[in-house]
């Protein structure tokens, strides 16, 4: 599976899906013009990757803002990860949020409640 690297824009996050290394990253703000068009190809690649093997996978999500369409897209990315974890693949989602950002921390807690097989870690980042 080819690595997917997309630079951040002012309204879409940096994407680095390094499948070979078992490491996925989203970082930045997410309110793309068309969330389905932005996240659809990522979801398709992730699903294809998850079909084979059981390499451990870590997904770092470091979004400082996301709109409701992006929340939906994130949930769509998370669901196959939870399924893969249930089937035995070690999966860790790390939800990175800035110190003091209660909105993003709360959103992370909301997502965390949907995982029972994948590990969901809340990671507070201190301001640089």
């Amino acid at each position: 599976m080819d690595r997917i690297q997309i630079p951040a824009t002012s309204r879409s996050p940096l994407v680095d899906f390094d499948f070979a290394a078992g490491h996925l990253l989203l970082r930045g703000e997410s309110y793309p013009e068309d969330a389905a068009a932005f996240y659809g190809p990522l979801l398709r690649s992730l699903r294809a990757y998850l079909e084979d093997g059981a390499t451990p996978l870590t997904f770092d999500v470091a979004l400082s803002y996301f709109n409701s369409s992006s929340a939906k897209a994130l949930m769509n990315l998370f669901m196959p990860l939870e399924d893969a974890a249930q089937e035995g693949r070690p999966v860790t989602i790390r939800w990175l949020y800035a110190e003091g950002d209660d909105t993003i921390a709360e959103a992370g807690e909301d997502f965390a409640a949907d995982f029972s097989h994948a590990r969901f870690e809340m990671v507070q980042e201190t301001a640089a």
Partner: protein
Amino acid sequence: MLATDFMAFHEASRRNGIILSFGGDLSENVLFSLGEVLKLRMQQGATDAAVSKRVFSVFVEQAQNIIRYSADKLVPPGSPAGGLVSAGLIVVGVEGGRFFVACGNEVPGEHVTGLRARLDHIAGLSGDELRKYYRERLRQPADEGSLGGSIGLIEIARRASAPVEYDFQARGDDRCFFCLKAFI
């Protein structure tokens, strides 16, 4: 006359605490640019960062609702979500020390019953119930005809500090004028 009229309009806006108002055709690019100046205005006003984020979030959800669901479309339905251009109004202001974001747009008459029912339901929920309902909706497939997550209205209600206000005005044709106002 021209200056008198425009100044009266401008001063009425000021008096009403309006810091941003837009009426006309709204695209994703217009949304982005208005959002940028809104952020700048709130930064300059030394608005609390958490409040700014909530105002911005409600602004984005309302603007995207206009773009996606306004019945008055310049670029017709069926275009990719990112390319829609639709008419409506969006206003951000401060009233009694609290920010508000309000929007208005035409909706097809046949959508009114469903939209009103969803808003009645959302307006009756407590903060915890809204959070639970948001999580439920996040896991479900989007409603038919929805281009986003079907959860924008819940997001608006979650970020608001009081129940959202909404109203419908019949126009005497097959459309209805829909308004929504959220205090942050």
